[in-house]
């Protein structure tokens, strides 16, 4: 996998320190490093957020220890403050920031192009064309960082990070690594008061100038088939699409191709040569015209009259692929984009194939909590609550039948937005946030509500892991990234200390939880500051533990004679294990999917759902 290739490249480059906050599609880089950390003799941590991770890894590089931090593209927004400053102060050892972008938004709220961050912060950006290329280029990125004593941004994308490809290792991981650093008390460098900052800016801009001047060489810029009348300048994965498209279209010999692996700042010398030799140039890059703008500026400043195209032919939205790039090339040539592949028409089905958005898993504790909080709100007479939401599996609560996520903007936003809403609207406001997200960005806005006398309920869904990205441990788990036991930081204590009357529920106990939450919501109505922590382990982890320890989980079924076909279980819970067979009037439970959480049995008004296969006597252990 591309992420594993990046991890391996970083190890070969000699890193001894790595810190990150998980986020798709970046997560597996740090997971791969954590898995080998002890054998490789390096330190790896899951930090509480991207800014904290960046600071930790940057401190290592300030102190002569090569380091890595990785994050998803929007994570760079969280770390942007220190990112900017790191470019001013520079580093004393190789320091690479991996930004895993998500063109096409497979699992993100936007598809921002983080090459702009390089431009914005004056940090060079290195960008690979494939997983194999990523493996080599990470090492080149470390060389660049060491050479200029400057941070380097390594931009991956979903299709690099999550594509598997055979990679042949070129060297061993160094046995001798620099893991012990030293801190130079270089006040003028590390204390960015304005007077120092102005001096550091000059250093930074000199690095910027030199990179653009000197790095127009392989592996950063590679020119294939020079001297043709037509040229394509391609960055990142677009290069891989271009090469295959030219092959498929039989046009390989007609084009000069420039592979750009250092898009920011674009090393201009070899590019200018190509601009002078070729008359028609197409810039192919995913998302924004970062290369195109630089190429056009270069042409303008040098009086080059070649025609330069880019986003007039290449899509600006979504990810590119072989098909879209081949079409762009044909359009650029003024031809009809007729493709060699002839797809079948979509099938005419009645009714059509339904959409299948991701759903909460069978046994997911969020389902219980959502059912509980909605029932309790009714019971407490809390009318039309607004549920602000956040980033995690629980975001799926935006869907029917829950409607318990009415915003989901960025990490921690549920609480900050809830505060603002509570100041301007009349409805009650409930901020719903996951455990990992609460540690990440939920603390400052929780304090803000108390300080500024806002009025919103904070509901923390604590499933003990950063679940959506694959169950990484967090400060509530009791484990570090390297698998060592550590303290737990209890969310309820944090909230209590801030001034919230805090209730803790186990949502597997549905009735008891409804009563507790209803009481909490009544207090909220009376004007108290209230928080609720709903704690139950992620179902996937419970199932995993059961399998590992030979624990059998109970399986439920619907007793046909007792079921009236009221569909309450189907309509209120939307559990993937409960289906209505085509044409049937009563639902049934798929035994292979049921994990025995028992929510449906507690919800059924006719007591028609019963245990069908008993679990082991200790089955509840799996959920602990």
């Amino acid at each position, binding site marked *: 996998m591309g992420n594993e290739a990046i991890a391996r490249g970083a190890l070969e480059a000699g890193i001894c320190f790595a810190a990150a906050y998980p986020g798709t599609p970046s997560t597996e880089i740090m997971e791969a490093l954590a898995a080998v950390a002890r054998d490789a003799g390096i330190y790896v941590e899951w930090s509480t957020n991207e800014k904290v991770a960046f600071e930790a890894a940057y401190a290592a590089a300030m102190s002569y220890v090569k380091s890595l931090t990785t994050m998803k593209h929007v994570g760079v927004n969280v770390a942007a403050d220190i990112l900017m400053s790191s470019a001013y102060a520079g580093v004393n050892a190789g320091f690479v920031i991996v930004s895993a972008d998500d063109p096409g938004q497979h699992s993100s709220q936007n598809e921002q192009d983080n090459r702009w961050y390089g431009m914005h912060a004056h940090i060079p950006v290195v960008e690979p064309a*494939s997983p194999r290329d990523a493996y080599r280029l990470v090492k080149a990125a470390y060389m660049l960082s060491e050479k200029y004593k400057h941070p380097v941004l390594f931009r991956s994308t979903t299709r690099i990070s999550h*594509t598997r*490809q055979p990679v042949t290792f070129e060297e061993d991981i160094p046995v001798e690594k620099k893991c012990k650093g030293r801190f130079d008390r270089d006040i003028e460098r590390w204390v960015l008061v304005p007077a120092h900052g102005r001096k550091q800016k000059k250093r930074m801009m000199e690095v910027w100038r030199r990179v653009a001047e000197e790095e127009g060489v392989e592996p950063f810029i590679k020119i294939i088939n020079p001297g043709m009348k037509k040229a394509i300048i391609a960055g990142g994965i677009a290069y891989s699409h271009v090469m295959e498209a030219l092959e498929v279209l039989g046009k390989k010999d007609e084009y000069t191709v420039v592979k750009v692996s250092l898009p920011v700042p674009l090393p201009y010398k070899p590019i200018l040569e190509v601009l002078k030799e070729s008359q028609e140039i197409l810039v192919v890059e995913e998302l924004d015209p970062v290369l195109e703008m630089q190429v056009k500026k270069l042409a303008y400043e040098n009086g080059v009259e070649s025609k330069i195209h880019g986003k007039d032919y290449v899509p600006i939205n979504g990810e590119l692929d072989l*098909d879209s790039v081949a079409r762009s090339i044909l359009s650029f040539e003024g031809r009809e984009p007729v493709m060699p592949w002839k797809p*079948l028409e979509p099938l005419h089905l009645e009714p059509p194939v339904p959409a299948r958005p991701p759903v*909460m898993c069978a046994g997911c504790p969020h389902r219980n909590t959502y059912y509980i909080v909605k029932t309790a709100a009714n019971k407490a007479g809390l009318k039309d609550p607004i549920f602000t939401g956040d980033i995690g599996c629980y975001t799926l609560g935006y869907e029917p039948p829950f409607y318990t996520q009415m915003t989901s903007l960025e990490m921690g936003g549920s609480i900050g937005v809830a505060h603002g809403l509570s100041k301007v609207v009349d409805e009650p406001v409930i901020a719903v946030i996951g455990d990992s997200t609460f540690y990440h960005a939920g603390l400052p806005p929780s304090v803000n509500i108390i300080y500024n006398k806002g009025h919103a309920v904070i509901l923390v869904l604590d499933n003990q892991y950063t679940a959506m990205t694959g169950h990484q441990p967090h400060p509530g788990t009791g484990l570090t990234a390297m698998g060592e036991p550590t303290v737990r930081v209890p969310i309820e204590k944090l909230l209590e200390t801030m001034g919230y009357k805090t209730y803790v529920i186990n949502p597997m106990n549905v009735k008891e939880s409804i009563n507790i939450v209803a009481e909490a919501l009544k207090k909220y109505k009376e004007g108290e500051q209230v928080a609720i922590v709903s704690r139950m382990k992620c179902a996937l982890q419970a199932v995993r533990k059961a399998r590992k320890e030979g624990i059998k989980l109970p399986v439920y079924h619907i007793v046909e004679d007792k079921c009236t076909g009221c569909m309450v279980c189907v309509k209120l819970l939307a*559990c993937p294990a409960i289906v209505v067979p085509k044409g049937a009037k009563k639902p049934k439970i798929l035994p292979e999917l049921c994990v025995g959480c028992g929510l449906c049995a507690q919800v059924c008004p006719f007591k028609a759902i019963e245990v069908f296969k008993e679990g082991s006597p200790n089955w509840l252990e799996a959920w602990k």
Partner: protein
Amino acid sequence: MTRYNILVTGVGGQGLLTLGRVVGNAAILAGIDATIAETHGLSQRGGSLIVQIRLGDGESPLIPRGAADLIIGMEVLETARRIVYANKNTRIAMNKFLWPPPLADYPDLDQVISRIKETGVKLYIVDANKLSEEVVGSVISANMVMLGFAYAVDDGLKKLFEKEHFLKAMERVFRGKAAELNKKAFEKGYEEGLKQA
């Protein structure tokens, strides 16, 4: 060389990523270059999922619509959804398992099968969930049943791989008893495929 394109389609949790990893390891053993594009994160949570396997020289990881040589469908509705990746020469190996999303209306199995057949593609159907239960006691190895089945019915795969490549690949992906059970599941699917090939 034109790359050989395999689209694996199904629902998150059905073992699509694992199927991709087994094919990837088999490719390494067979000396074939490969890219396998996965989707992660939220898409795992019972959502619609595809894995794109491209075999042969080249690095562009996404299959153009109409360019799949083989589609392995772990679920009926998902196979129908991705039919545009097929052309009329594509082979489709499909698990006879229709898993409707919660709260949705959906076309029935017979309708989907007849519509796919009307397109003229070669459709091979097997109840991989049932065979997996027979062999390993649960549906967990339905993915390997499907891989064995697809290998038996698809000439393109047979040209690229020996059966041994897949069996050895499973030893690299699974450990101990799981490797043995999955190999059995693969063999079961393969036997079933030979009956239809």
